[in-house]
């Protein structure tokens, strides 16, 4: 994010669930990024190999359609503005699941 004309890195907590947890063998990681989605994905990929490929749609520059990606409990696909991460944000990522 920009602060007084300078880029400031933010820390974001990321939690994986269901098959993503099994695949990545990790429940939770913390990543540093500049606040934008692509920076977040790059940073995440450096800690969790393959995450960018699984989660990021390179053409649309957005979260892949089949993934449920919550930023502080809100589905980013319902956000009208582009994603901007803040320090201390929580991201929860789920593959397609259901129940009831």
């Amino acid at each position, binding site marked *: 994010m920009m602060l007084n004309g300078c880029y400031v890195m933010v820390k974001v907590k990321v939690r994986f669930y269901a098959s993503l947890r099994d695949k990545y063998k990790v429940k939770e990681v913390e990543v540093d990024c500049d606040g934008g989605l692509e920076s977040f994905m790059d940073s995440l990929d450096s800690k969790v190999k393959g995450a960018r490929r699984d989660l990021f749609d390179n053409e649309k520059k957005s979260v892949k359609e*089949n993934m449920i990606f919550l930023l502080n*409990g809100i589905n980013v696909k319902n956000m009208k503005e582009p994603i901007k991460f803040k320090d201390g944000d929580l991201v*929860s990522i789920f*593959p*397609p*699941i259901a*129940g*009831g």
Partner: protein
Amino acid sequence: MGRFLDVNLTKGKLSDYAPKENILRMFLGGKGLALSIIMEHARNLAKKGVNLAELDPFSPDNVLVFATGPATGTGFPSSGRYHVMALKSPLTGSVASANSGGEWGPYLKFAGYDGVIIRGAAEKPVYISIMDGKAELRDASRIWGRNTFDTTTMLKEEHGKGDVSVACIGPAGENLVRFANIINDEHRAAGRTGVGAIMGSKKLKAIVAGGSQRVTIAKPEDFKREQKDALKKVKENSITGQGLPTYGTAILVNIIDAHGIFPTRNFQESVFPEAEAISGEKLAEKYLTKRRACWGCPIGCGRVSRVPSGPFAVEYTEGPEYESVWALGADCGVKELDAIIKANHLCDELGLDTISMGATIACAMELVQRKKIGAERLQGLKLEFGNAAAMVEAVWRTAYRVGIGADLAEGSKRLAEKYGAPELSMSVKKLEMPAYDPRGVQGMTLNYATANRGGCHVSGYAIASEVLAPQPVDRFTTEGKAQLVKTLQDFTCIVNSACVCLFVTFALGPSDFAKLLSTITGWDLTENELLKTGERIYNIERQIMNMIGIDGKEDTLPPRLLKEKIRDGPAKGHVSKLDAMLPEYYELRGWANGVPKEEKLKELGL
């Protein structure tokens, strides 16, 4: 389709009943056909001068209908289901409705029948045996008092182990617990609205079914083609092909909690800090031993679990499903998954609806928290949020109506009324709401309020569109939700009348159903005709409710959800905005104050 066993328990008389072809096409089967039978019964009672509003659900005049659908047992993906309906639920006082999977539905068809109508009441315990087209009433004194597992084992031993299926009640049904269920195949439940207690009141312990009768398919070659296509869709869909088979339904715990709509401590909070400890992931890691699919199901979401040691040890059990984990877990503030598995197992064994059981215990815990239930009534039972052992003990106390269990057996609404705080019952039309806080998902607000059977999530499962969809609709807005909920409710009537699992709708839509059902029935069904049939079924159910005296006054939610904002989490500050959706919903339905207008009934041929 079209052969029902009509049993009059008072007279001990069994006969066949065949609905007319036009009735079959109007109501399809399953839930729809059961409702048309119940409507006829209700009209006959009304003609005799019976006041339906005052009719005791435990009276012999109540009627109970088991119905399979045209899809049951055919090989339509996930077609191992049947529906149970009754004129009056002992819990809600309204129409009773429940649905189950397992094997019993197909086995009833293999026995040569599409459904069973139960009228009157027996003097002494009986069960019904239906074998290869031959039905008889038998003495059940030997199995009366037994739990559902023993009952199933004994009847299978008597009638032929692997070749029969048993639907029965446990002690809870015999003891008229108002939310007692019917258990088939040991762990599958026609769970809601107390249909098991109606069996108990009629002294009907079980129905055993088996045989080798063929299930009729009008166009077998066309069916095979459509079936192959549908199976491919189910296998390739990420939810039905991967998510549900791998993790079962309890995988919802974390995602619903992460959205801040996981009701906690009787809906006082909406985030459960210990959700991870009771999650589907934890279940798979610690207790899952294998999967168990219902008859003909390519999904196989059922879990087999084992708690190897400790005070809550269980050697073999199935589940727990998501709603049960929530009700016996977060709603009671319980974070011990082994205790939840044990309580879930007891509910299956004793014949109790896990949702109403957990939610009623949660209601009691809040009554204790607010000092409405005194220590003298609890006799040392520490019915406090988070007390896992007390939660488990409350389950068997309820089934046998022992101590405080006698109050719990009445359901949360009557319990809360008795102790002077009816507003603490988290129910709609006296049916306890399941595991989604509707304040943070407005489609569920409208669905819970208008679902015919009461606080029901699966009448119009808006969660699929508002939370689980790849491109979800905004869960906080009220816009567009009236149409969404109406469409879901109508389509679900088709699913429950065809008698297939609701989960296939993640992969198959109304047009797939139209194609498959056309090949089975021989009718040329279109998507539009099916949706109109669904609407007709929703309306006939509402029509019967109106005859009982239930109208729009009961299309509402507990005051907590309408007035108290969610305290914390992602949905903080939200309330259920029912008023913003209900008028539009009534308009779309052609209803006035919860009552279908004459022109709507005429349009639907009702």
